[in-house]
């Protein structure tokens, strides 16, 4: 699949009831520039009271574009292998930071990835989970690697040495940037059994990554493979993707209620600060009708 970029010129306001013909299947007119603007450093300082901007990863955009195109062709998206028969796909962004990498002794032998999965509904059946990590092109850093691979990328739970998944990386691929995908469904299942306590607010899932030379136990410096996290834009951060299927028909109003209440919580915090302003685009989040 090509990565999706859903951008279309801001559509003119349409008259109610006029028959609207769409050239391609895309009804979407996502103003991605707004999303990037709010996540762009220069864009953030005057929106400091807005919560950290959310920028969808290319993977989520391509998921959306593929399945909505399939719907328009009358195909059932859950028949796609990549959807694992899920009707909900949630991406959690890594909360680990470059600081944690730096705190570890250099060279960087292991990395911890932290995901807050508290919003994942336990009413839905988990049908798959994968860790997606972006490997930047190491450039000349790789030249100093002891040998040119192959390498073995391994992922473990942070508090155990039980290998969850591994995949080999051959020398040619290791010189180019790309996404590495590791299956962590096993751990997620165990996690959900033990953490099935809704009151647990901080549902953090922790994964540990290391790379060895082939099948040996010689650990490789992750920086030399473009895996360090310093200065990464939002869309290059690692994501944990959970595939779930809900039996009952998804009700739009669940999300609406959830979002309204979370905005209210936030507005409560921001209320006193911004209430007076009210200038368009600066006041509290628009009240939803």
């Amino acid at each position, binding site marked *: 699949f090509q990565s999706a970029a*859903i951008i279309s010129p801001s*559509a003119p306001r*349409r008259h*109610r*009831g*006029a*028959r*609207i013909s*769409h050239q391609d299947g*895309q*009804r*979407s*007119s*996502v*103003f991605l520039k707004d*999303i990037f603007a709010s996540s762009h450093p220069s864009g953030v300082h005057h929106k400091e009271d807005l*919560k*950290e901007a*959310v920028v*969808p*990863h290319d993977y*989520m*955009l391509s*998921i*959306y574009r593929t*399945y*909505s195109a399939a*719907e328009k062709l*009358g195909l059932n*998206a*859950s028949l796609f292998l990549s959807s694992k028969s899920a*009707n*909900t*796909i*949630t*991406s*959690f*962004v890594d909360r680990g930071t470059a600081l944690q990498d730096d705190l570890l002794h250099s060279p960087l032998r292991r990395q911890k990835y932290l995901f*807050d999965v*508290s*919003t994942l509904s336990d009413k839905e059946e988990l049908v798959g989970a994968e860790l997606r990590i972006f490997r930047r092109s190491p450039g000349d850093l790789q030249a100093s690697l002891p040998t040119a691979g192959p390498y073995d990328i391994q992922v473990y739970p942070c508090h155990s040495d039980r290998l969850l998944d591994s995949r080999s990386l051959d020398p040619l691929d290791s010189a180019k940037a790309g996404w590495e995908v590791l299956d962590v469904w096993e751990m997620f299942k165990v996690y959900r059994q033990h953490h099935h306590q809704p009151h647990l607010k901080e549902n953090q899932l922790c994964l540990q990554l290391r790379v060895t030379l082939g099948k040996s136990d010689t650990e490789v410096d992750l920086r030399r493979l473009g895996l360090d996290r310093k200065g990464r834009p939002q869309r290059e951060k690692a994501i944990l993707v959970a595939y779930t299927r809900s039996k009952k*028909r*998804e009700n*739009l109003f669940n*999300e*609406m209620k*959830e*979002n309204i*209440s*979370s*905005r209210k919580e936030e507005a409560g915090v921001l209320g006193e600060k911004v209430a007076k302003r009210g200038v368009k685009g600066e006041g509290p*989040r*628009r*009240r*939803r*009708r």
Partner: protein
Amino acid sequence: TALNNRHGKRHGKKSKSRCSRKALHVNFKELGWDDWIIAPLDYEAHHCEGVCDFPLRSHLEPTNHAIIQTLMNSMDPNSTPPSCCVPTKLSPISILYIDSGNNVVYKQYEDMVVEQCGCR
């Protein structure tokens, strides 16, 4: 024989169209949902409108009850209203949105687009 509604129509009154699917463009931005819905920001939902009067067309796939109710209404409009023009086939759409934890979520929502209308 059932009264044929057509003769009973007063002159000059605009004849109401038969039950059929009409356009309904939904703009999530106008609903104020664009701060949590990433895509699509608008879509064509359609809606059903029109009268279910005698004789019912077969493509409206009436239930037996709707046939009976329409007959009864044709014979005596005070005995019962006509059957209703409603969606008889719906399809899903995909939505990419931001959940309350600031995560990007893809979800398929059933019953978002009217594909067919009928009398029930």
